[in-house]
């Protein structure tokens, strides 16, 4: 009888012993986690995309509660969600201007000269590693859709001309496509900056135009037509400095013969899309 009771007694004893330790630990070592972190995290999209610069949504929520970042820095959330978070935390939304990914190239299959046929390993990075794909231009879009595969938000689709069409509605300005492009052609720019240079050829004149029909030949007309100081020629390409003052106007692009500088209202390559529709 005795030996039957020993085992449970020992177990109960051990249980009480550790229970006491836990109770003491709970009393003296307790960490108060701000319940707002959890609640804020619930309101975030949970994609862990990293567009805000944080490793994921929870670390972003922690920083939000500490007041180190603004809710608006989450580019993925809808405006309502941002408002909700701002209201909940009683801070300013600080909604940053909407950024979208733009491609610094306008030379699709129809415009860029093909010097070879690339039949190797699929993907831009694969082509860039061996011989730079089939296009004569060594700086432009390879058109093999690495960005389409990398996009988390299904915002990039290759158009009929072999260029990645960015859906500005869906684009959340996370840097996935920027990292995926072996030619570093994607950049995140504010949607309301209408003037955009969509060429990356550091050559001038005929050297550029013989590679691609829509190459910037560095003629400098856009520099002359824009407000002084707004556009400068650097490395045979126009560079737009929005901070320099001077109001950007569509006049700057009117005389561009190759459409390498454009006035964008929404998406890039709208003219190419319409051409596709016309063909169909």
């Amino acid at each position: 009888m005795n030996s039957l009771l020993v085992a449970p007694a020992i177990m109960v004893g051990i249980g009480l012993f550790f229970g006491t330790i836990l109770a003491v630990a709970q009393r003296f070592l307790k960490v108060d986690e701000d319940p707002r972190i959890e609640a804020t995290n619930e309101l975030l999209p949970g994609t862990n995309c990293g567009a805000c610069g944080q490793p994921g949504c929870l670390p972003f929520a922690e920083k939000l509660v500490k007041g180190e970042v603004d809710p608006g820095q989450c580019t993925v959330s809808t405006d309502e969600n941002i408002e909700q978070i701002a209201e909940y935390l009683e801070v300013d939304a600080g909604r940053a201007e909407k950024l979208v990914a733009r491609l610094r190239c306008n030379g699709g299959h129809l415009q860029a000269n093909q010097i070879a046929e690339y039949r190797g390993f699929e993907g831009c990075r694969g082509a860039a590693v061996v011989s730079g794909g089939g296009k004569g231009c060594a700086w432009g879009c390879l058109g093999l859709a690495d960005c389409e595969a990398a996009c988390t938000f299904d915002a990039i689709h290759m158009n009929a001309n072999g260029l990645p069409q960015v859906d500005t509605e869906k684009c959340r300005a996370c840097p996935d496509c920027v990292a995926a492009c072996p030619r570093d052609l994607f950049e995140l720019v504010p949607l309301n900056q209408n003037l955009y240079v969509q060429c990356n050829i550091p050559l001038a004149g005929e050297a550029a135009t013989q590679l691609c029909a829509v190459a910037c030949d560095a003629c400098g007309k856009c520099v002359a037509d824009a407000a002084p100081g707004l556009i400068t020629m650097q490395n045979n390409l126009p560079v737009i400095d929005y901070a320099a003052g001077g109001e950007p106007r569509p006049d700057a692009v009117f005389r561009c013969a190759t459409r390498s500088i454009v006035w964008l209202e929404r998406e890039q390559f709208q003219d190419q899309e319409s051409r596709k529709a016309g063909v169909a």
Partner: protein
Amino acid sequence: MKALGFLRRSFEHGVHPAHHKQQTADLPIQRVPFGKNYIMPLGQHIGVPAKAIVAAGERVKRGQLIAEPGGFVSTGLHSPVSGTVTEIGDFRGVDGRFAPAIAIEADPFATQQVDAGAALDWQSLSLEDFIAAVQMAGIVGMGGAAFPAHVKLSVPDGVKIRHLLINGAECEPYLTTDHRLMLERPEALLEGAEIMRQKLGAEETVIGVEMNKPDAIETLRKHIQPGQPVRVVPLKVKYPQGAEKMMIKSVFDKEVPAGQLPRDVGVNVNNVGTIVAIADYFLRGMPLIERVVTVAGPGVTYPANLIVPLGTPVRDVVKFCGGLKPGTREIIMGGPMMGRPIASLDVPILKGCSGVLVFTEEETARRKEYPCISCGRCLEACPYFLNPSRLARLSKARMFDEMKALNVFDCVECGCCTFACPSSIPIVQLIRTAKDDLTHRKEPDA
């Protein structure tokens, strides 16, 4: 036991591609006539690009220094022809990118006499002067990597080079440049070997040659002077026998640990072409301005082994060989296993280019890719004992960072895995892509 010795003369793993060398193995080396335009890229070796010291419009003589080394891991460049510098600008290179180069138009009336200095008194040169001379002569590893030869010669204190290993394996299919050099210029090879051996202070020279070149082995053995510490070691025919770490394993049965260099096991490895270039410079004053190139493959009309001045456009070389056959689909610079396809015929022959291979539809058609069946053939093929199948899967899933833990940077892209894969998975291509992503990826600014 001794009879089994030759069986041991190999490394573990590797593959056995058909060698296809019969096309050019018996063709003597011939010289390509001078053409019109030459393009000398400033960065045709591994390391810092050279610095041009000539200007557009300047007249240059064949063999004249036109660019000096841009740093220690860099070499000089010499004009391959007598003519006029037309432009110093960006030209398309083998990788499709534009890079700075010196364009020279040959003078059709020049004698093309080499503007070479006299032979150098190499014996009295100090080691530093010898290394500097090799650097100025523009000599690089001629096997394909184009790593500056003088860097290998600069051994840090405390490291003793005991063996000079000369790589005559030529394990890449189709290529016969080293084979022909060993047959036609064994004296130059052995002279160069003696210069290198004495300067390195090595005890002996070992020439490793694959056993499918018995004539080369015989010729070399015949030319060895009595008392000269040179051994010719026949090696098993296996790819990549010519990779330096594999060859050290085959010849000396020593393994060079990952991340270390051959010098750490007391060996200096040089290609046959490099050694001949050393002999040409120190005994005849001829800097590196031309090299032997094998033009072969089913798509070329007259295959040949050619001495081609550096900077000659591939177009001229192919034209000399009777042009391309109809149905040509792909031109590879280098060997078929590790060479690079070129997108334009205007790219020039560089110091590291050992072959121009022309393939037709039949050889280049891509086989249908099937899922990995986990057979492990790639693991058995990989001479570096990596796990190619796992690396390929990670690369497909774009999990590049995870590949670092599997030592992806130890991969030399020899292509054994892709060759061995029964499911036709482009394994080495996937790994190469991942390596490129890891080294060139632009980190987001955020």
